[in-house]
């Protein structure tokens, strides 16, 4: 994999980096990770993207990771040694769309695919439904890795790189014939619970234990943190107290409440099924950094490739970085391996599976992919 980083985050820098990667004859496809601070817009980029000679995919994330460094501004362009088959799934918030049917129709043959990159608009409302459909159609015969792109302002805008230009409210499924090993872990533990989700609409939790969701959540979090919620600081406080959905014999599936909704509802990244039980979780620096290290170990253990110089793709939740603040460098140190080039993104939700567990859309989770490329 040819990896070039432009730290200026400018359009000119993007185009120069693109040209530099495309100059390599072996480059057959592109993975593009860009920082939100670049302020890339369709008007500025669509013409360039539409004229690309190779298939591409990627996203604009709150921040990106290049080596041991996280960058708010900049672009990573990875030249892939084989052409990915990229499919675009539009309308990722539309409740009427049957993703099972669309995926079944778009993918007739997966024989050679070993790894699927899934990049979604992280602020779409039906990401979990799409993930369930992926599992329904493909099962766990292939590895999945990816995450949610989008802005930390939580304003939905074009954030997916495609050969059609920058798109929003969509998902990109890119299939590659490369071996991979995937590791997933988060390190969040139960603070209090369980609470029954008595009313929910996709990613909006309306009530818990028959009470307005925020009312109950506020009680628990304010008591545990000793701080009071306000409209201005909701996420500042909530980023340390996500929800956890139970799953037998596995880490809880984390759901990150990011905004206050109407009538005391909580808006999460990813769906929370009505009728399920959730815990309110809390984390510590050590447990989170340990989880990142665990994800690396799991990824390496699962890797079956022959390459002695694989590449590491790190999809880590932006809220982990926001929670860890200065200590986030510890997380990067924990996964850094000087024998492996490292690239990645700080995402709005993570997607991963290494063939063991039911495929899920994660929040606040560290995902390490070891790629044979």
């Amino acid at each position: 994999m040819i990896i070039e980083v432009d730290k200026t985050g400018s359009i000119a820098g993007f185009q120069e980096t693109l040209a530099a990667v495309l100059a390599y004859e072996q480059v057959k496809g592109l993975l593009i990770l860009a920082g939100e601070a670049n302020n890339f817009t369709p008007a500025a980029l669509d013409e360039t993207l539409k004229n690309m000679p190779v298939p591409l995919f990627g996203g604009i994330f709150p921040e990106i990771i290049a080596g041991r460094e996280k960058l708010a501004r900049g672009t990573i362009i990875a030249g892939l040694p084989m052409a990915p088959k990229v499919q675009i799934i539009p309308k990722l918030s539309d409740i009427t769309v049957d993703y099972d049917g669309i995926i079944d129709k778009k993918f007739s043959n997966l024989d050679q695919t070993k790894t699927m990159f899934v990049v979604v608009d992280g602020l779409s409302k039906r990401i979990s439904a799409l993930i369930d459909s992926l599992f329904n159609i493909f099962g766990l015969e292939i590895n999945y890795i990816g995450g949610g792109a989008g802005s930390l302002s939580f304003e939905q805008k074009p954030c997916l790189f495609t050969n059609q230009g920058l798109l929003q409210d969509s998902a990109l499924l890119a299939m590659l014939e490369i071996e991979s090993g995937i590791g997933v872990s988060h390190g969040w533990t139960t603070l209090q619970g369980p609470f029954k989700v008595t009313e929910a609409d996709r990613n909006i939790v309306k009530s818990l234990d028959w009470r307005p969701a925020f009312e109950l959540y506020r009680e628990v979090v304010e008591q545990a943190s000793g701080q009071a919620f306000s409209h201005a600081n909701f996420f500042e406080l909530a980023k340390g107290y996500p929800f956890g959905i139970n799953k037998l014999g596995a880490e809880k599936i984390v759901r990150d409440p990011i905004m206050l909704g109407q009538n005391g509802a909580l808006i999460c990244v990813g769906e929370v099924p009505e009728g399920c039980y959730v815990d309110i979780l809390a984390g510590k620096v050590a447990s989170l950094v340990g989880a990142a290290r665990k994800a690396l170990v799991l990824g390496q253990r699962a890797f079956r490739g022959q390459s002695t110089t694989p590449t590491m793709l790190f999809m880590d939740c932006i809220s982990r970085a926001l929670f860890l603040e200065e200590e986030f460098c510890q997380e990067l140190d924990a996964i850094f391996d000087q024998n492996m080039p490292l690239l990645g993104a700080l995402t709005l939700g993570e997607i991963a599976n290494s063939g063991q567990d039911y495929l899920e859309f994660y929040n606040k989770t560290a995902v390490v992919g070891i790629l044979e490329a």
Partner: protein
Amino acid sequence: MSSSAEQIQILYEIAMSIGTSLELDQMLKKALSTLLKKLNCSAGGIHFVKKDVNQDLGFEQIYAIPLNTDRNRTYQAALQHLPQLTDRKQVADFYRKLPLRGQDQAGNHFHLLELPDVGLLVLIKNGQDLDPFMVKSLQPLLEKLAGACQACWQSEELVAAHQHAMKVNFELVEKSNALNRSRQDLLNVLQELRQVAARNQTILDAIPDAMFYLNRSGDILDYKIVGEQDLPPGVSPEMLAGRNLQQILPPDLADLTLHYIGQTLDSRKIQVFECQLPLRQRRQELEVRLVVGEPNEVLAIVRNITKRKQAEKALQKVKEELERRVEARTAELSKSNTLLKQEIGERQKVEEQLRQAEQRYRTLFDEAPVMYVITRDQGGAPIVTDCNQQFLTTLGYRRAEVVGRSLADFYTPASQADLVEGGYQRALQGHFDTEERSLLTRAGRVVETLLRARPETDAEGHVCGKRAMFVDVTARKRAEEALRQTHAELERKVEARTAELSAANVRLKQEIIDRKQTEQTLTTVLNTVGEGIIAVDSTGTIVTVNQEVQRIWGYQQEELIGRKLQILMPEKYRSTHQAGLQRYLQTGAGRMLGQWLELEGLRKDGSTFPLEVHITATRIGERLLFTAAARDITERHEFEKMRDNFVSTVSHELRTPLASIMGFLETVLGGRPGPLTEVQQRFLQNSYKSSERLLKLIEELLTISRIQQGTLKLDKRSFLPAQAVQNVREMVASLAAAKSIGLEVENEWPSDKKLVGDQDRLEQVITNLVGNAIKFTPEGGRVWLHSDEADGSWQFKVVDTGIGIPEADIPRLFQRFYRASNAAEAQIQGTGLGLYVCQAIVEEHGGQIGLESKLDAGTTAWFTIPASN
């Protein structure tokens, strides 16, 4: 590991997901996906006990996640445990074995769990397996799932029954509507019938006949009479009802009527008879019409026809009189008729003959391929009275549109003018020439014709018109026109071609003149060139030579043209030349081409001389031509020999005083004459270093001189190459250290293995190569010395990380005084003689030397010395 409380939550969440829909697919999707997600299973499926198309029992997969379980090896391993079923008892036996758990070869787990009365659930769990407690805890949920499945079925049945009932209800409503429509239709019909009956009664009342409904016995069932006068005497209308005919009619009439009633009823056909009835002092004539009515009933329509009978009798009398008269007249006419028939027969024969003649004429007239028109003079104008079909077809008119019009109407204006000018008048006067006329079709097309006209005379022999015959010559005219145009075109082309040929001829003549001049110029140029020019074709035959060749070799030009090139070279070169020529023709590769070569030439007088020659290959059209430019370098060789001798002498003369200078410098620097100041020491050291460089240059010049003179002598003895390398390493170590260059030696040539050669000279070669590597490597770089055995030879290699050599310079580096272009740029000192000397020494040992380099990346220089040397 999840706690028991969490497990209970999970079970609760699974339970809540079961039965959320009465549609089976939706219900199973929700329940199974929740179950798999919460239990962290990687796949699962629902199988129902069902009969297949052959009525065999089996576990049919109804729903699975993922949808395609064919690729899931664990799932397929689980299915291997499903038995072949033939009856429900076997199903029950199999259920007793459940729950069943197992593992596939990869260590993934599967579970087969009973769905009571429905089928079974397959669960696939990768990694850590489900614990038995959890599996047991699932049982009530599975019962609920089975119940939900049955509820879905019942729902489906209910829906089906409801749909059936709805269908039946719909059909009943449809039928009821149809009946209502039928009843209304009947009422409408009844109303119509009433109206018809009223109309019939009106019609009946208007009929002037008496009518009676009678049965076979003659009983009067109903009746209608016009007036009492129609009744037999003594019978009033009131007496008719319920009476029998025999009671009111005379017996014979009653019998007759009964007879016809019987016939009517038996035959079911209308019977009509006439009879007489005495009424009011007169006998009345009656016509009775019997019509079949209801079974065994007839309608008797009785009409009084007394007056009609009387009129008929009067009419009969008139008729008989008329017939008689007709017979008499007929006899008269019959006679005259016979005469007339004879006359008519004869006339008919003549007419038939005339008609046939007319027909033949008409056929000829119409089918003739020329146009015929017959005109009659009327006020000076030729009015068409007839024309044939060809005329109509050609001009596109119908006969009715032609007859009665002036023939002039069908001419073009030009022909009309001609006609007015007298053509027709001449015709009337009996002058009938063959003329050209242009006719105009209805569509406006011009038909060119030849007109030949004959006078048409009346019964008295006067010319009253003309018979005109038009022959269509349009095609001929067009062909003539086309021929004329073609002819004109050919004339034009011949003229143009002639002009072109003339111009080409002039050009060719000029070109021949130009070419002759060019040839003369070229020959002049060729003969004034200071080099011998020889052109040879692909067979090696001389095609052209210039005068310089004549001077160099002593042959006349004409003596050489057509001869093989070999006559100009000594015997020892001829086979090599021939082989090189063949190789070039076969492969296109020519090592001798495009460079100056030093060879020997053979003059006509048999003497040889040193020759410098440059050969190029040129393709002129299909012809391959080799051109050799040759110089006699005898004088140059003699000069070089003189120069080398001079250099050798001078070098010897220089070395002696230089050795003295260096000796004194060493002594002074050694401090024996007395202490030196620091400045003095530095100056003297510089002088000593310069002397060293000068000595090295002189040594190289001397070596070159020996090489040139062929007097380079090697002191070949057995020596240890490993030792030689080590000696050099020690010698250059300080040079490398001064530039912080890492110097590494990889000595793979066995340390105790000897080789025959001039150790000093070979050390000189190694020193030169390593010295170059250090000189051309920037500070902090690396230099590797590698000594090895390869293919029976000693192979020595120096690899550096230096500035490299431009690719264009590499082929010339082994020439005397040649230095790489970037060496001067980098201000690296040197004479350009070192590699030339190295090459000479290595080749004297029977070895080879060479180097590879990449600009800014480094250089590898190497040589090999055969062990058998």
